[in-house]
């Protein structure tokens, strides 16, 4: 399973208002507007590199919901998008060992 971590040397600047947030990505100069799920995923990864299972678990606890396919799919889709935006990157477990 892949480990997701913040793209190397990323500096992120956050502004939060209630449950909505804006994020400034220093490396790209882009501002991203995120929903609560997006914020939570990214902040989890910012704190600790994690695999999908770990993320699902933490997010489920945070939002007080059950881990089902729907949640997994939503998190996976967010991760893919974050990967494209260069916010996060994935690494195979064995890459890390090597």
């Amino acid at each position, binding site marked *: 399973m892949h480990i997701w971590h913040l793209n190397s040397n990323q500096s992120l600047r956050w502004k939060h208002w209630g449950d909505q947030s*804006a994020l400034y990505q220093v490396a790209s100069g882009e501002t991203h507007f995120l929903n609560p799920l997006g914020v939570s995923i990214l902040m989890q990864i910012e704190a600790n590199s994690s695999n999908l299972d770990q993320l699902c678990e933490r997010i489920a606890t945070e939002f007080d919901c059950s881990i089902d396919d729907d949640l997994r799919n939503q998190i996976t889709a967010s991760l893919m998008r974050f990967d494209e935006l260069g916010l996060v990157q994935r690494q195979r477990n064995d890459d890390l060992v090597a």
Partner: protein
Amino acid sequence: MNVSDLTLLELRQRLTTVGLCFGCGPFRIRLRTPVAPIAELLHDLYAHYPVYSELGIDDYRVKLDWASWSRRWIRPIVRFTADGPAPFTDVPVLRALPTLEWGTNWCIATRAHHFLMLHAAVVERNGCGLILPALPGHGKSTLCAALTHSNWRLFSDEFGLVRPEDAMLIPLPRLISLKNQSIDVIRAFAPSAHLSPSFYGTHKGTVAHVRPPLNSIVRMNEPVKPSLIIFPRWQSGALLNLESIPKDRAFMLLATNAFNYEVLGELAFNAVAKIVQNCDSYSLVYSDLTQAVQAIDELAHNAHD
């Protein structure tokens, strides 16, 4: 010395030689033109701007020239330049003034990246800085002109100039540009408003310019802290409707509607965040200008308390 202290002859002489060097907000603009008919208009509409005679550094050097000598007498056309190749198509001399205003705005928008330039009108009253961002056609200039003639001080009808270091609003009291039916609306709302003649057939339709009141030019070096953001939208026959806008949405609307948000990067991110933090934001749908001004006055009064 202001432009009105020059005689028309003196103004013409400057325009055709060294240029009319005048101050508008933080900028020093030098305008040269041999196009005689425009001098009279400028004498009237630029009357309150201070004339700079001392040596200094010009921020913008703009020029309006005859575009073609062969067409000097028959349907003459003029060309706008700013120390470089002409950025726009030549226009008939009858539309010289709107082109000059538009061209100068273009210079500011393409170069003044030491400021964050919101695409918004800005006015001030009793220390309350009000930002009116809007898409074209939403009636921001009309509302701005109305407020300017209802005891508000004009900062700008087009550029919400923000100093990125401290997110203060900087005045840039250029002529207010009114389009189509707004022209008569403002004539009716504020008989004291000083309007230019109407210019027909510009790429924005009929255009007329409002001269900034003397007070807004005298005080053009006094910035203000932003306190209120209102997103106005004029809608025929609509009842006045004022709704609060959450801060994240206000942030997004301000940032995506700015001229150079991307260019300023993190500076802009922090400045916009600071603005929405300090401001209450509303959307305002209106059809009656008097009601709209009244509603805004009340909001400003409460915001300041």
